[in-house]
């Protein structure tokens, strides 16, 4: 009963705070500056009464200034079998702090939280979107959620994103004094207060007056500069499963022992099939490649979030029978197939996404990953497999999972491993072309482009598309008015992860003819887009992946065109990259050569302007036009 009193005491404090006036006059001017919304006050309290009973209570007031800020005024609550929404209520105030309306759970929409085709997912969502067209307005609400597990404790991210300022925000974690917890603090400048109330231990973090941060192009991963607090109890309970971990080693061990260990048995026919398949192959690598290609033909990705809250893979026998599964099931199945011929592999949890996000080496917790891939140690030559793709070459990870720390769950325990990085020099797009320019301005001819490294999958998806879809996509990729593709051929070298595209192109009316001259841009296919200017940049410049593009195109000129041109040569070299351009006549042909290397790396905010100038200079040079005279 004591605990009960304690939460009541907190609620009283909250209610006292509610008497606040929400007129926007009270917002300090610095917080209004360039903000789409202001978090006026946000109190999050997590009361871990027991591993099976964790209460989350949130009191929040947000002022929204314009349409772009609307998303911060919405209230979206996810729930499932293990997460119950206990209460919600709130009010909306106008700019003068006068109440306009009230809402409660009955005003919420309730839907399953599944976007694409997913066979099974337990996750549901209740949401409330204020239907307000008058700005500014303030939404004030309170809600309570009960979590029947403590493996994943809701973290605190007081700054929800760009263009939002924060007046006041706090996070309190309450537990038994005997409960062991681990805490991860990121970008939190204040101090934490520890209080003891009624035999309970409470830790409080708070921040005040954080100005809105403008979104800037090429910004680093927001995790790096937005504050956050993560809490992970040492002893946890999850879907009736109880365990203990303090580091990745332990979490990996736990995952292996309880989620993965006994899921890999296969029917005998499949074992025989695999044994038969690799007959004649001598190296493990060659065997693994054959098995992977067989696996890709046999399976497809279907989301089925079933089994211990979506953490346990479906058994290999099931995948064998159905031919589909989610990332966990497919990795587990591939692992089982490899085991048949004695090839070791690791089930690896990764934070997938175009943004390179590491699992934090110094802080283990279950919710950091969102995807699973497979790693084959292969005697010191680690090879990585994406098992949800039916066409990725053996050993190829795309920019979805490259260059980041992942957790390998092995029978010895968890260990962090880094996925391979795409080096700029190896991420190449190499294009050659032999084109003809007619005197009426039409261009026609052949181009061939080879893609490797991080550029491998730029156009690779075309391979599986139907002819009309290919044509449509190519017209989008080569955004030239009037372009037509007379023929298309594609080839993939899965050993080298190299994709080759051969096109016969025709572009009518490409060159402009005026006053006896023919004018055109010889760089048809690779025009760098300029980058926007940023005033008073504050964030570092983060160039995530480097690459090299080389275009060499020759133009055979129509007899009616006089083959004389003012040659042009440009060379730029700086810390962001290199650019070379050459336009000249050679053996009666106009030769166009362009090489651009963009380097990766992090740079200071004040260096952005130099980067912008470099890119814009490249962009301007890419648009250079060649002028030739027509015979009269």
């Amino acid at each position, binding site marked *: 009963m004591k605990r009960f009193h304690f939460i009541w005491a907190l609620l009283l404090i909250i209610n006292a705070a509610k008497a606040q006036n929400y007129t926007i006059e009270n917002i300090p001017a610095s917080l209004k500056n360039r903000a789409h919304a202001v978090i006026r006050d946000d109190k999050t309290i997590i009361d871990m009464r027991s591993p099976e009973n964790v209460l989350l209570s949130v009191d929040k007031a947000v002022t929204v200034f314009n349409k772009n800020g609307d998303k911060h005024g919405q209230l979206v609550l996810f729930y499932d079998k293990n997460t119950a929404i206990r209460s919600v209520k709130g009010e909306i105030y106008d700019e003068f702090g006068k109440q306009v309306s009230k809402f409660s759970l009955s005003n919420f929409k309730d839907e399953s939280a599944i976007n694409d085709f997913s066979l099974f997912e337990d996750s549901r969502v209740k949401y409330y979107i204020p239907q307000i*067209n008058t700005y500014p307005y303030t939404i004030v609400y309170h809600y309570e959620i009960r979590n029947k597990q403590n493996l994943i404790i809701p973290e605190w991210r007081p700054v929800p994103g760009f263009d939002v300022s924060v007046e006041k925000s706090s996070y309190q974690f309450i537990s038994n004094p005997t409960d062991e917890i681990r805490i991860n603090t990121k970008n939190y400048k204040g101090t934490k207060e520890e209080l003891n109330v009624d035999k309970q231990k409470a830790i409080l973090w708070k921040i005040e007056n954080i100005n809105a941060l403008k979104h800037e192009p090429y910004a680093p991963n927001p995790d790096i500069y937005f504050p956050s607090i993560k809490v992970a109890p040492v002893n946890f309970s999850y879907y009736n499963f109880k365990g203990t971990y303090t580091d990745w080693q332990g979490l990996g061990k736990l995952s292996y022992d309880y989620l993965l260990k006994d899921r890999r048995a296969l029917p005998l026919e499949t074992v025989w099939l695999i044994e038969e398949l690799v007959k004649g192959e001598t190296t493990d690598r060659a065997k693994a490649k054959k098995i992977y290609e067989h696996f890709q033909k046999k399976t497809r990705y279907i989301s089925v979030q079933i089994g211990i809250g979506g953490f346990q893979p479906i058994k290999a026998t099931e995948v064998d029978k159905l031919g589909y599964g989610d990332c966990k099931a497919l990795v587990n199945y591939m692992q089982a197939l490899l085991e048949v011929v004695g090839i070791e592999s690791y089930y690896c949890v990764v934070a997938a996404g175009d943004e390179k996000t590491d699992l934090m080496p110094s802080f283990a917790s279950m919710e950091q990953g969102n995807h699973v891939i497979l790693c084959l140690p292969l005697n010191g030559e680690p090879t990585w497999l994406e098992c949800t793709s039916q066409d990725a070459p053996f050993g190829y990870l795309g920019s979805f999972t490259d260059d980041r720390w992942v957790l390998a769950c092995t029978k010895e325990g968890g260990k962090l491993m880094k996925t391979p990085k795409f080096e700029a020099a190896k991420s190449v797009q190499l294009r050659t072309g032999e084109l003809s320019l007619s005197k009426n301005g039409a261009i026609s001819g052949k181009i061939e482009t080879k893609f490797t490294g991080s550029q491998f999958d730029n156009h690779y998806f075309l391979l599986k598309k139907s002819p009309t879809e290919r044509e449509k996509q190519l017209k989008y990729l080569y955004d030239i008015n009037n372009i037509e593709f007379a023929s298309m051929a594609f080839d993939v070298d899965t050993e080298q992860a190299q994709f080759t595209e051969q096109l016969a192109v025709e572009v009518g009316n490409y060159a402009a003819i*005026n006053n006896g001259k023919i004018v055109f841009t010889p760089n048809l296919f690779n025009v760098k887009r300029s980058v926007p*200017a940023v005033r008073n940049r504050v964030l570092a410049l983060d160039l995530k992946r480097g690459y090299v593009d080389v275009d060499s195109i020759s133009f055979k000129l129509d007899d009616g065109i006089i083959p004389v041109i003012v040659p042009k040569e440009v060379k730029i070299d700086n810390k962001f990259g290199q650019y070379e351009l050459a336009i000249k006549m050679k053996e009666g042909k106009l030769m166009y050569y362009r090489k651009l290397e963009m380097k990766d790396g992090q740079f200071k905010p004040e260096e952005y302007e130099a980067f912008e100038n470099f890119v814009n200079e490249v962009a301007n040079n890419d648009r250079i036009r060649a002028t030739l005279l027509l015979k009269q």
Partner: protein
Amino acid sequence: MDGLYCIIKLSAMLRIFIFALLLSPIVTIAQDFTFGQLSNNDRIFDRKQLDSNANAVYLNEAGSTRFSYDSETGHMRLIHQYHARIKLFNKEGFDAANIVVPLYKSGTGNNEQETISDIKATTFNYQNGRLEETAMSEKAVFREEKSKYLTLAKFTLPNLKDNSIIEYSYMIETPFLFNFKTWNFQSDIPKVNSTYVAYIPANYRYNVSLRGFYKLTDTKAELSRECLRIAGKEMDCSKLTYNMKNMPAFIEEDYMTAPTNYKSAVYFELEEVFYLNGSSQKYTKTWRDVDYELTSNRDFGGQMKRKDVFKSIVPSLTTNATTDLDKAKAIFEYIKKQIRWNNYYGKYSETSVKEVIDRRSGNVADINFALISALSAADLDVEAVILSTRENGTPNKLYPIMSDFNYVVAKVNIGENSYLLDASEPLLPFGLLPLRCINDQGRVINLKKPSYWIDLKAAKKSATTHSLIGKMTEDGKIIGTVTSIALGLNALNIRKDIKKYTSVDEYVEKLDERLTNIKIKNFKIKNVDSVENALIEEYEVELTIASNENNATHFNPFFINPVRKNPFKLSERNYPVDLGAANEERISINLVLPENYVLKEQPKDLSIALPNQGGRYILQTTLVDKNLMVNQQLLLSKAIYTSEEYHYLKEFYNRVIQAQKADVLISKNN
């Protein structure tokens, strides 16, 4: 073909058929095909036969719907059988094996809902000359409670390979008789054969309509004796068969309204039920019935005549107004400011005009009924217009289907003119509807006179004029002022864009960041809030777009809103192009050239037009003293272009793009 889709009225014809068939012997034709009995044709079917780009095709698809009487509850139900056989040519086509069946629920107290049963699904693979069958287990069917009104039954087929043939069937029982069961002849993959059979008891009358651009391959009306048993009594049905063969995939294209306007499908609307006791109940009505119902409905007609709410306020609003038009404008302004839209559409008032005025917020109907009441309080001649928004499809013109309409606006008649008004968008000027309402026709509902159709068009011209007046410096910079004047829907769009930001300054800052090679030095934006006037933007700019070499400068004078890409790229267009409104853009550039420079080259003058007065493009360059003037006019004078006109539009844009590639060359006069 007129309009966006065609409807074939079948019901009248059917009645004759049924009558004739009463006397003829019963002929039964097997519409469904046998589960699992694959033909050699199925096995060898090559997509080239229908569409070489298809990743999957329906080899065969059959459905039927019949009535069933539930003696326990005494309610009628519909039993819908569905059966499909699909060939998957490659992995890209595997999505066709992910099946989602929507099951609707009333969501109200009685909680009536649709149920699915008898789900059967099998994958067939030809392996080494043998047919291998993999049946889906019943356990592989999942249910997702999507929302209060919708449950999804989901399953996927096992063991898929290239060239797998999948087959599945299920039965749905539904208590919702009104819409029977719509049958779609088109989906995102082609269909070789698609047949639908509807068994309609003699005492039920449905209106049947066919939508889309394709004709039925076959249709039959037959008599089906004793198809239904109610309380021990056998009833006869008419058996209606609809068939289409070799249907192409439906692919959404740009400049289209709702896909339901284009997709081939057969729709049913319950018209009338004749009960055994001799009484009857009408469901689909005539416009006369609907007029009466709407005008006497509390949430429609009832809210049109709430003059009382505005009796006191209207005289003070209109004191300065001398004409009826001024009065109407003053009232329109007042309602727009007074009531904020809560983002919901609707043709019925959710509360009442009285309450909406107090709360200052409401749905579209609340706001526009308040407007109608206020206008009539000022003794103006005002009517309501119900309509369907663009994404909601076009309403059926043959008979009233109330569920087709989702919006209501006001129509005020002043002298010879009438104006359509929607007070839900505060940024709209008097007499202009937002684009979402510009969709075919609306029905005018008058409290005293019969209703009638009216065209929904953008009543005000959508036009933009950009003009740059400035000079070119010797080092190739252009310094000057760009003035942009926007009217109609173009002005609305810019105003909405500006309102996304907290201030106009912020809007311009973002604009400046977006434009490379253009620096905005100073700006003035006029009439952001006075929406009756043109929106005027003035920017002092500095452009670095020219390149200067050997005392010669060349630049492309089409730097304001150039057309770089052709919006019409397809080699063939199957459906009309719906732009929503006619549009005109004029761009003029007036530059003083630097001293001692002469004009060497200029873009060629051009004047082209679209057929049937569809539009034109005019480009003219002139030099007077040191003043270089480049004037362009791009006019699209129609809102909708037919698919036959597509090629002209495409070529028109090609010519514009080509013309805009030409540079101006000036050089120093030595």
